[in-house]
């Protein structure tokens, strides 16, 4: 990767993030810090939560534009967290992308049924994940624009 590429990437990243807030909920601190790093490099505002309960509070307080949610967590697992997120009026509309090491098709189907918009399997490719996140945010923006329009 040449230097000019890197500059361009950084510039694009800043434009891409455009100050949107992303909440990452995962009980793996390393994964969480890595997500924070990557997301911030791309110009997003990254908020993290180390478990489901904290995630619910963060979601309520921060009103993020997107939530990345891990499934296999201690105490409250991702499914429970997702259900509660969808029950809360203030967080119901926030798109949730599931992050999971479980690659079973039935988990993916369940995730979509329970209201998640996408599913990323761990270990994930940074590039692909970021693309998915951007696509979800674009969709949400389109929907908001359509809703605000005539």
């Amino acid at each position, binding site marked *: 990767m040449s230097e000019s590429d890197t500059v361009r990437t950084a510039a694009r990243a800043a434009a891409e993030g455009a100050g949107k807030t992303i909440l990452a909920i995962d009980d*793996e601190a390393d994964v969480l810090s890595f997500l924070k790093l990557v997301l911030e490099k791309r110009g997003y505002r990254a908020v993290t939560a180390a478990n489901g309960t904290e995630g619910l509070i963060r979601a309520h307080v921060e009103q993020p534009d997107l939530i990345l949610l891990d499934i296999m967590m201690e105490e409250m697992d991702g499914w429970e967290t997702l259900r509660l997120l969808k029950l809360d009026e203030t967080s119901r509309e926030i798109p949730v992308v599931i992050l999971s090491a479980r690659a079973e098709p039935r988990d993916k189907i369940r995730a979509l049924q329970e209201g998640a918009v996408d599913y990323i399997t761990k270990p994930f490719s940074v590039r692909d994940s970021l693309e998915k996140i951007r696509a979800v945010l674009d969709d949400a923006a389109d929907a908001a624009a359509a809703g605000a329009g005539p």
Partner: protein
Amino acid sequence: MVKAGIRRRFVVALSALVGLVVLVETAVLVVFARRHVREEIEQRALAYAELAVVPVCDAFARYSQSGISKLHGIVHDTAELNPDLRALAVYDTAGELVFHSDSLEVGARAPQLVHVGPERERPLRIPVGEQRRAWTETLASGEDFYVVLVPYVEEWGARRFAAGFYFSYDDVRAAMRAMAARIVVVGLVALLLGVAFAWILSAGSLGPVERLTAGARRLAEGELGHRIALATGDEFEVLSEALDLMAARLASTIEDLEASNQRLGRLNEELRELDRVKGDLLANVSHELRTPLTAISGYVEAFQEGLLGELDEAQAASLEVVERNLRRLRAMIDQLLSYSRMESGRLKVEARPFALAPVVRHVAEAVTAIHGKELDLRCRLPSDLPEVYGDAGRIAQVIENLVTNAVKFSPPGAPVELAAEATAHGVEVAVADRGIGIPEPEREKVFDRFYQVDASARRRFGGMGLGLAIVREILEASHSEIRLESRAGGGSVFRFELPCAAERTGNVPGRVRVALVDDDAGFVQATAAHLSSRGFAVETAATAAQGRAMIERVRPDAVVLDRLLPDGDGFELLAELGKSPATRGLPVIVATVRRERRLGLRLGAAAYLVKPVAPERVEETLREALGAATPEREEVNVEEMTP
């Protein structure tokens, strides 16, 4: 009934015996009685004749010339004294007949008695001697007469006569008749007694046999708790004891068998549980392994993307090594996961027509990415390969595993060949290495899970020994098979063949094929027309047999099946399709007028529609049934093809 058979035979035999005895006795009795009666008559006749000769001859001498009526009177009175006497005659010394009772009227019996014809036509010229004579004379009519001739000498010797007496044996006949009547009565009574006796005897001796028979029958019917327990003290008791003992042994054997079956069942259950636990463990371990990989590969990628600042050349090269090894690790974890899925029976093979070349190229790229420079992979892909039929994702996995395996067992820098070639019925894929080869006894075992050629191979070559097991499982599920040619030290070639899409389907590739098996012409026509208009390729059959043949030939993606078919039960075909490995997993929608949803679904139907049903509803159900399988398959494939 056997019981009646034995008893009846017994009674008949015994009665016949009694009857025979009675008959023989009667015959003997008759012969003796007859002789006895005759002798009695003759004795009586002789005694009578001795006595009667005097008055008869005396009367004749005195009154033959005058006083004939006196003669008659005397003769008559004398004749009265013996009931057997039929006639009497007087002869002179020359033997000439001088008087015959025929000329008399001898009482009431006379007319039939005095008819002694032959004596008058053929007079007895008997030399009248001193001796009395007696003999039996048989007439032409067959009637026997006892004739007694007694000489008579006048007191002063003046004249000598002989008197002849003719006695009938009629009394014998009468006596015989009376006797016959008695014999019949006695015989009947004897026969009756015989039958009764036979019956009683048979009940006594056949009772145990009957009980034995009945007992044996109950034992045969599986009533092993039954005991015959005869106490007759003879062979029957021994037999019954033997039968009872046999039944007891059988019962205990069956009990043992059941107990050991239960034990086996429990053991089996435990093994299954263990296997399930192992499967879960496998799945969990591979999931857990992915989590730390996430952070590692994430950071590596972040470095490579330049998100964490610029890297110099050495750093970039080092990271590449890290990344390559990460890929290997991921591939192994994926393999483990794939295998655990296979173990739990969740491996699905969804065959569709597909082009092999892009799949092979994709695999080649992926494998090269993992193994880097140490790999010399040579692909031979003719440009005119026909489309094949199978699960593209799974076949990619097979090829990848075969190539990975080949790389593992090749000396560094030795080429691995990956070739595809059109055959008569499809495409053959071959992966050849120039490695250590596999000795003959090991050939079959290499496909076992966790198998390595030898223990040291594990250290030398790494890997988990799952690759070839997965290959075999997938190919078996795809109705293909893996073949291995190898020489120890001379490398190995793994081959498998995939059928041509055209040959397999005989249809436009890519269209969803639906088989309609129903004899209801209206329903078939409407539904086929609707489905065709919606892009389905529809094949129809009106009977179960045709349907079976058609499904075999066309290999449809889904079946719509009626229960009531002219040649049989649609459910039988449904169960058959579920059992046959070729059609297992094929979605079958039952559309019928009968309401047996539960049975239908239990037999493996993907959906159950009760007629009448609109073609739109059939289409909707078809899409649901086909859709349920589709997303799963696609996601899994993408997942596992991407290293």
